[in-house]
């Protein structure tokens, strides 16, 4: 498709769906589908039909609306009234209400801050487009960046724009994306590959899933742009099979884009060709590690291999490979549409742009948010997140999943940046944010993550295979009040060995939850060991205290 044809589709689609049209938007991402938003949508469609042709109501599915714990969510336009916990039997009432006053009992409590403090770039289309309709994406300026880049920028200029934007890898490592792209572009060989890492596996994290389910074309466009910039003709999306809705929408999006010739041979009338294939992961956390992921795509057992050589030099089938995370690719089209300088205007000196977080745990507004880098943890938890339920006291926030750490109260006013989070022993990670209050035991938290790492270790290298199991046993011993101070010293020694000698990131970061809880909550470990007491009242001691005394 040529640029003019794309513009025409966008204009026609926008004309057919003016912002003044009465529209009911139903969230069809996994969170709301799990509480039957699909039934709600059907009921609304039926109710809209009954309303007659004189006052037409458009019912459409849209992406994740953010307040996931309040689902199913419906937005009524114009007016952007947000309804929560909608049931199929509310449909007639909601349809009728488009003509007059909103249905008061279903309106979500005015939560201005939840939306106003956010900055939407990756999630800009979530409440606007139907993820299963390519025309919706095109009407929201979709594929514009791809077609204009192909005709107006050279690959080198494309990468320059990305370097200017300051975008860093959103999978957690924070490696400068532009630098990665230019390394792959410079690698020798004409056969290169693009991989989108959609093997999101951190407990409590659902950012990538939401992006894939809400705006799949954004990923395809980002990958095609990457292909153009580094000189690759083939892309793979490695997505976990546990995300069936994401897989379905990705496959649909690929076939739609191919039909419109936005993927395939000679895209936009240029000589550039690009195809994308979906590969399913079978549920191994370690396949999120890039070399294990590559092995898995090749049909081998998903285990990591030593780096160097890095995939940029020798990746899939031994060829130079660019591998980025879902959220990273989701930023590309917008950056190239608006320019690198525009993107660099968000965030802080070293961490530009925005970050999507999945808020979970002991927090009022559980859900998906996108915030500018540099926002403080306090703003995220208390303003956007609405604070801790039940008036309980905040204890820590866990970022970065099993590779990250727990950040205590004294750092709540710290800005969220790659470097600042690392300084307090955690990491940015892919965006999971689990809030804990005074009823959470930090030994128990460390034990939970160690159990996760132990069962997700692939077993290839010795320190991770045996070390995680030994550390888990020691944590069990501590949480049951059976441990001594020698056990604690041994635990710290094992943490050091596993961190520095493991083969891949999984093992190297597996001790982090222990190390960070030991750093800030050592007194809780000591209470378990010296007094056989769990301060939060979570752990069950194997020796009743009175007998022990």
């Amino acid at each position: 498709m040529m640029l003019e044809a794309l513009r025409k589709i966008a204009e026609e689609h926008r004309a057919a769906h003016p912002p003044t049209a009465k529209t009911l938007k139903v969230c069809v991402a996994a969170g709301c589908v799990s509480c039957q938003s699909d039934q709600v949508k059907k009921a609304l469609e039926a109710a809209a039909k009954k309303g007659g042709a004189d006052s037409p109501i458009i019912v459409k599915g849209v992406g994740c609306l953010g307040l996931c714990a309040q689902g199913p969510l419906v937005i009524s336009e114009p007016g952007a009234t947000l309804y929560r916990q909608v049931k199929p039997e509310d449909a007639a009432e909601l349809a009728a209400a488009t003509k007059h006053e909103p249905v008061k009992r279903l309106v979500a409590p005015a939560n201005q801050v939840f939306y106003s403090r956010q900055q939407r770039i990756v999630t800009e289309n979530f409440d606007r487009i139907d993820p299963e309709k390519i025309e919706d994406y095109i009407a929201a300026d979709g594929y514009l960046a791809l077609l204009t880049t192909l005709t107006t920028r050279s690959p080198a200029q494309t990468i320059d724009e990305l370097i200017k934007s300051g975008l860093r890898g959103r999978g957690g490592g924070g490696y400068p994306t532009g630098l990665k792209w230019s390394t792959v572009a410079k690698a020798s060989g004409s056969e290169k590959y693009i991989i989108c890492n959609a093997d999101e596996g951190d407990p409590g994290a659902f950012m990538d899933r939401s992006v894939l389910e809400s705006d799949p074309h954004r990923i395809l466009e980002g990958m095609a742009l990457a292909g153009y910039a580094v000189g690759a003709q083939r892309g793979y999306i490695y997505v976990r099979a546990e995300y069936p809705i994401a897989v379905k929408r990705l496959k649909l999006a690929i076939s739609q884009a191919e039909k419109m010739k936005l993927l395939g041979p000679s895209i936009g009338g240029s000589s550039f060709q690009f195809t994308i294939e979906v590969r399913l992961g079978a549920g191994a956390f370690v396949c999120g590690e890039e070399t294990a992921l590559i092995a898995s795509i090749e049909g081998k057992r998903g285990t990591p291999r030593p780096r160097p050589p890095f995939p940029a030099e020798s990746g899939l089938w031994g060829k130079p490979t660019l591998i980025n995370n879902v959220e990273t690719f989701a930023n590309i089209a917008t950056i190239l549409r608006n320019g690198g300088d525009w993107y660099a205007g968000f965030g802080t000196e070293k961490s530009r742009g925005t970050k999507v977080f999945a808020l979970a745990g002991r927090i009022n507004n559980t859900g998906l948010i996108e915030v500018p880098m540099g926002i403080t943890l306090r703003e995220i938890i208390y303003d956007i997140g609405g604070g801790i339920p039940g008036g309980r006291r905040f204890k820590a926030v866990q970022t970065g999943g099993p590779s990250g750490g727990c950040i205590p109260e004294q750092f709540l006013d710290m800005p969220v940046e790659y470097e600042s989070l690392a300084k307090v022993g955690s990491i940015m990670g892919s965006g999971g944010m689990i809030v804990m209050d005074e009823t959470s035991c930090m030994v128990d938290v460390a034990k939970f993550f160690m159990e996760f790492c132990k069962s997700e270790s692939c077993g290839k290298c010795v320190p991770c295979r045996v070390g995680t199991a030994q550390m888990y046993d020691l944590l069990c011993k501590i949480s049951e009040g059976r441990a001594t101070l020698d056990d604690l010293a041994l635990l710290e020694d094992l943490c050091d060995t596993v961190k520095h000698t493991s083969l891949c990131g999984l093992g190297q970061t597996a001790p982090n939850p222990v190390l960070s809880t030991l750093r800030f909550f050592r007194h809780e470990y000591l209470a378990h060991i010296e007094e056989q007491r769990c301060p939060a009242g979570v752990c069950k001691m194997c020796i009743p205290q009175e007998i022990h005394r």
Partner: protein
Amino acid sequence: MSTPSRVITLTLDDREVGAHTDQTILEVARENGIVIPTLCHLEGLLPIGACRICLVEVVGSNKLLPACATKVTDGMRVITQSERLTRYRRRVVEFLFASGNHICAVCVSNHHCELQDMAVYTGMSHLTEPYRYPKLRVDASHERFVQDDNRCILCQRCVRVCAEIEGAHTWDVMGRGIEARVITDLNQPWGESDTCTSCSKCVQVCPTGALSIKGMAAAEMKKRKHFLAQYWTLKEEES
């Protein structure tokens, strides 16, 4: 595709040495008489960097790198022995002893065991961490060989020699983490394997008593690994 090898210089423990860019740190060290301990590595098989015994420090890198799987680069400064490396190597050996059931006195490979040698090398006289005492399987279904998981350290030499040299790919790894095991075919008993050619290469490269020839008493099983070197010499002559 691959760029031709160049001659470079690097430093190994304060010694300047020459090398080709297609060599690994381990190869260059051995050429120069510098000992870096190894366990999963075996010359003639592709390195996998799994056991972490051969980790070395490279100045400028914040990570320790496996000497067996890391190619040398120009001006590289490598430290092969340090207090820290010794501590880590010893801990890795402890991990191996803790995770299996290694009872040397009754083992066919006593005195001819690379794990035992590594315990001596690292000075591991006793364990500072608890033994795990896993309940593991012994498979004596093959008419000539025995597989004893109690003595397996998952070095994957058997997997590699079978796939890379024999071309049968009978062996592979099943399960994750501490549950990972080496299996034949689709976890059938070894004796019922359709692909095993009974060539005994796996038995000969196994560093411990995990794979042995039937009918051996304690300390009788000596492994013969020289066939690998002969194989590659023949290959080179052919080409």
